[in-house]
């Protein structure tokens, strides 16, 4: 288990938990980042924003946000 | 065949880098009134730093793309984007030339004093000259992309 920020590029991860305030959590959940769902890490630039694919669309998340989302690896680099 | 293409891409990239370098020289000589002596190629580039940055970027993209090769996703990406930017620069230069001509025209019609405008020289700018092979590269990278997506026909690469 690790923060989304550390997930390797090209991997599939499952969301375990979101450790953020109410408003942010709500927004993330609505964008499809629901605990239990699987997302793909499209691009990660080390310390910086990342791009994920969730529910069929591309989302860019800031570093702070991706640090608050805990995930586990489903499939490594594709 | 592949090697020739990659070399072509690399050389185009180097060409753009050269333009960037010359552009910086040009800028230094204009902004600081330093006399560098006459380098023939200086007439073919703008003395604008932004231009230098742009051509440098395009050059880097092509060089990276040529090095990685168009069969690599990363390489293809940089070639494609480099091609797009170079083509944009090409058309931009054409537009600027057009604007220059229009301006001289307008001022002349109004009876104001208008400067001269050397059409040939503005057309011979590096961005236009190198823009032609760049256009070719753009088209090429798109065809490679299309071929890539047809690989589920089973004939693979």
């Amino acid at each position: 288990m690790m923060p989304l920020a550390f997930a390797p590029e090209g991997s599939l991860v499952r969301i375990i938990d979101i450790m953020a305030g109410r408003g942010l959590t709500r927004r993330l959940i609505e964008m499809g980042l629901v605990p239990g769902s699987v997302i793909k890490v499209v691009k990660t630039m080390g310390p910086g924003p990342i791009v994920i694919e969730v529910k069929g669309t591309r989302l860019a998340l800031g570093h702070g946000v991706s640090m608050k989302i805990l995930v586990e690896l489903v499939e490594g680099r594709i | 065949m592949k090697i020739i293409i990659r070399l072509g891409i690399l050389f185009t990239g180097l060409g753009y880098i050269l333009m960037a370098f010359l552009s910086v020289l040009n800028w230094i000589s204009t902004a600081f009134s330093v006399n560098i002596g006459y380098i023939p190629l200086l007439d073919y580039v703008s003395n604008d730093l932004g231009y230098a940055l742009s051509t440098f970027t395009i050059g880097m993209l092509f060089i990276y793309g040529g090095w990685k090769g168009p069969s690599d996703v990363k390489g293809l990406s940089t070639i494609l984007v480099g091609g797009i930017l170079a083509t944009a620069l090409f058309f931009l230069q054409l537009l600027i030339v057009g604007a220059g001509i229009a301006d001289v025209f307008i001022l002349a019609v109004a009876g104001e004093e208008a400067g001269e405008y050397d059409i040939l020289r503005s057309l011979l700018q590096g961005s236009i000259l190198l823009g032609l092979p760049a256009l070719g590269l753009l088209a090429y990278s798109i065809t490679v992309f299309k071929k890539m997506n047809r690989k589920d026909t089973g004939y693979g690469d």
Partner: protein
Amino acid sequence: MSHCDTWIPKARRKKEKEAKIRVALAGNPNVGKSVIFNELTGGRAWVGNWPGKTVEKKVGVSEVDGLELEIVDLPGTYSLTAYSIDELIARNYIVDEKPDTVVNVVNATALERNLYLTIQLLELGSNLIVALNMMDLAEKEGIKINVRKMSQILGVPVIPTVAIKHVGLDELKETIVKIAGKKPKTRKIVDYGKTVEREIEKLSRMARELGLGEKYDCRWLAIKLLEKDSEIEQKLLLINNGCRLVEAAKSSRIMLARELGMDIEEYMVEKRYLRIKEIIEACIEKGASPEVSLSDLVDYAVTHRVFGIPVMLTILYMLFQFAFTVAIPLMDLMDLLFNTYLYDLITGSQLPSLLKSFLADGIVAGIGSILVFLPNIVLLFLALSFLEDVGYMARAAFVIDRLMHKLGLTGKSIIPLIIGFGCNVPAVMATRPIEDEDDRKVTALVVPLMSCSARLPVYLLFAGAFFPAYQGFIVTSMYLLGLFLAIGVALIFRKLVFRGPTSAFIMELPPYMIPLAKNIKLKTWERTKRFLFKAGTVILVGMLLVWLLSVTGPQGFLGSKALEDATLLEKSWVGILGHLFEGVFKPLGWDWRAAVALLFGFIAKEIVVGTTAILYGATEENLKTVLNSVFTPLTAYAYMAFVLTYVPCLATLAAIKSELGWKYMLLALVYELALAYFLALGIIFIGKFIGFR
């Protein structure tokens, strides 16, 4: 009805009561909602604000079979919670105004995300039609949707469309009319499980007893209460016995939290997504999708950690070259038409001299000063709209976000800052989409430090007069100075004044698309219109005021000669004011005339050069030499820096006031004045120290 009447559709019968059908457009951002809006209204639309808010409201009209449709474009949202203004506006419009039909524009290639809003709209009780847009893209990606099955499951009409090719829109219009005014029955779109459904039943019954069934869908109310929706709670507390319902909801929540073992909101969101999955599985056949899409391919290089920013700078460079250089002939044309032809025409005519002056120096000069920049600004907006519609701007914001964060801003701030180089007014307005309040405020306050095109003539004049050899370099230094100041000011504001946490960056990256020329034209026209009206009226009124103050003085009317004769001008109100400020500017080495020019520049920076010419009694040719006798290179540079910083032009201040309010407008005014003054002082001081005069 007599036997001779043929059956009249319900909508036509309504015509007796209301002449038009009210339609609301709802949907996620980036689904082509505005394309559908434009296609339906054909450009017959107007833009305003939702009452009391700074969110844009677009209303348009359309026609079907002789019936008029009034179409409201609701803000693009992903959901209908109480967490954001956009969502509140959207849902309150549907609940309070009760439009006859709601059209939910859905992106067929992103159903899982889009249907979430659809479900919310259905639960809200809207009379819904789903416009399944981007069907062509779905086909390309191998997604086949069984439209009839989806319509069956959702219980509403589903119309496949390809908005940019105008496919399906006629059918959409007809369906809008067909189902207009129907009142949908409460249905259970999502089953939330026995325990939760029990509480929903309980609460909705209570709501019905309180008589809320008239206005609201009671099931929806119950669901919102269980989700602890703050706006609903507030509204209920205001009505008779509403507090009982709120209390009941509270105890339900506590009980459910215990039984479910998790946060209720999360639980309900999960249930919705599960239902969505079911719906999708029933309606969709997904074929083989391409490994790498073209968008992905481009994105690799565009968002690359090393290449990303250079690519962005390159695109920006080309943007500005386009907007400035290509605009030159057009600007010259404008200048000739107004400041020469028209001006000469008026001054050469037989009109009474006062009227002549009013028309020529007041109105023509005023309008001229705005119109000269029009080509520049239009081209800038054109290029920006193109980049936005292609989808690049989202990438730009993404690429630069980290850097912006260090400066106390957000990636989304970059767009207003870029626009600011053309004109500060639309730039301030472009700060609206920045969600975080603090980020928005800081960005808007920093925008005036971006050297707009109106300041360029001032830079060129002084740079040309005092630094002829390094002209380009000096002008560029002004732009850079503005940037540095902006960074510094943003940091200071962030650390001291707006200490809120830096906002989370969440942004959707839509796939790249070839934009429709029509949409770009419309967008550009909208922005230009806004610029012309806001900036134009302010500048025009300002110029007339300046004119008035120049031709009159405490001794009475001075006549139009005052504008040509500097000694006469000194006796006018303008001259008096100038002398008043002289003391303030003495340490900077500027005389009363420079002060007056600055005063005029407050109205609009464009007129500083013209005013300077009049004040020093010079013509365009010898202005430079005249200036040399009044300024020194050092004081001139300080003057340029002052012009860069001192005050946002009147129109910009008006924009700041309308976006952020009086307080922030005053803040902008005060901080910039102070900054400008001390900056100029600093330059003079350092200059003298180094050895300049």
